[in-house]
């Protein structure tokens, strides 16, 4: 019916992944247009540490003051609702990263002091993966991580 895959069938996985547009080609197809703010390097970085570097986050430390509100299982990887909550004082930026996506960084939010540090959005996930919320507060970076399982849906036709 849609992006049904088998964990054993590579051809099907690739097919499904390309359905979501998440094969390992990265973002090479992105037309390079100059944007004042958009952090191209961070959005094209592969893997977590390269992404942290591109964001200037170095090696962020774990924090219990960050919560990731999301279901443990997503019925479809094309739309995974995630709410990122930071209880760290002076939170100025919240980013959402998906470790196993071709480019880890999905979204980044710069908050003014008036914004409650609690952002809801929806992201794509190519497969079951750790999802990390990276918070910048008072110039320092902190993270929290949660695994979200992506399951198969439909009758697989």
């Amino acid at each position, binding site marked *: *019916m849609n992006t*049904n*895959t*088998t*964990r*054993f*069938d590579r051809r*099907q996985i690739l097919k499904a992944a390309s359905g979501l547009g998440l094969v390992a080609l990265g973002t090479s197809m992105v037309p390079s247009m100059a944007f004042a703010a958009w952090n191209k390097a961070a959005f094209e970085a592969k893997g977590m540490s390269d992404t942290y570097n591109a964001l200037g986050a170095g090696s962020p430390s774990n924090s219990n003051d960050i919560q990731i509100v999301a279901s443990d*299982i997503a019925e479809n990887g094309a739309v995974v609702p995630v709410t990122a909550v930071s209880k760290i004082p002076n939170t100025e930026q919240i980013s959402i990263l998906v470790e196993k996506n071709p480019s880890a960084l999905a979204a980044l939010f710069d908050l003014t002091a008036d914004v409650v540090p609690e952002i809801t959005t929806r992201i794509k996930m190519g497969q079951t993966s750790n999802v990390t919320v990276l918070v910048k507060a008072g110039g320092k970076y902190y993270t929290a991580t949660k695994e979200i*399982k992506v*399951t*198969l*849906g*439909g*009758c*697989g*036709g």
Partner: protein
Amino acid sequence: MMTFKKKTTVVLSLLAAMTAGSVLAAPPALPKDGSWGSGAGDANFDTMMQSGFQSKGIATTERLKQDPTQKLCSNPTTIYSAKNTALREKLQGENEASIKYPSNGNWLGNWKNGEKIAQSGKGLTWSDKAGEANGGNCYNCHQITKEELAYGTIGPSLYNYGKLRGNSEETIRYTWGKIFNAKATNICSLMPRAGAMGVLNEDQIRDLMALLLDPESPVNK
């Protein structure tokens, strides 16, 4: 004490009624005689079916023609009625006779291939192409390995199938027959007749057999 109990029961059943949503009126019941209502007799129904479908890709309107088993199983009121006893036995015999056991004496193939076949729900829709291998659709209805969480529950769990049943000749033969033509043992089984209808070939059935019965298969771990 009695009154309290009574009250609780009333409240509980009220709650149950509310959560079950039984405030809704029951839909019209099917006629007990096996008919479909005065406007839905054979002539009207056939007209609707013939004018309402079109061939698309490999799914032609030929597929609407029922074989006697499909016809029997299309009326829930009369499947098990006494007047159909002889017909049921006859059709079950025909389905049993359709089973072809392995031509080369090999019953078990490769469980890894079997897992792929069990996962795949592809095949025989109008968006599939002729000649492509069909999937088994097994996970749509059965739990099979423990690792796959996305399994259906229309059929029984097959996890530990071989571990629980062993692999006597009888079990092996029964399992083959079930995959090949489930209607040989249960005339209106909901399971497709994978072998008899040509959905899966002999090699594919062997691989599914291995998935269920091979001690090395994750099903039996």
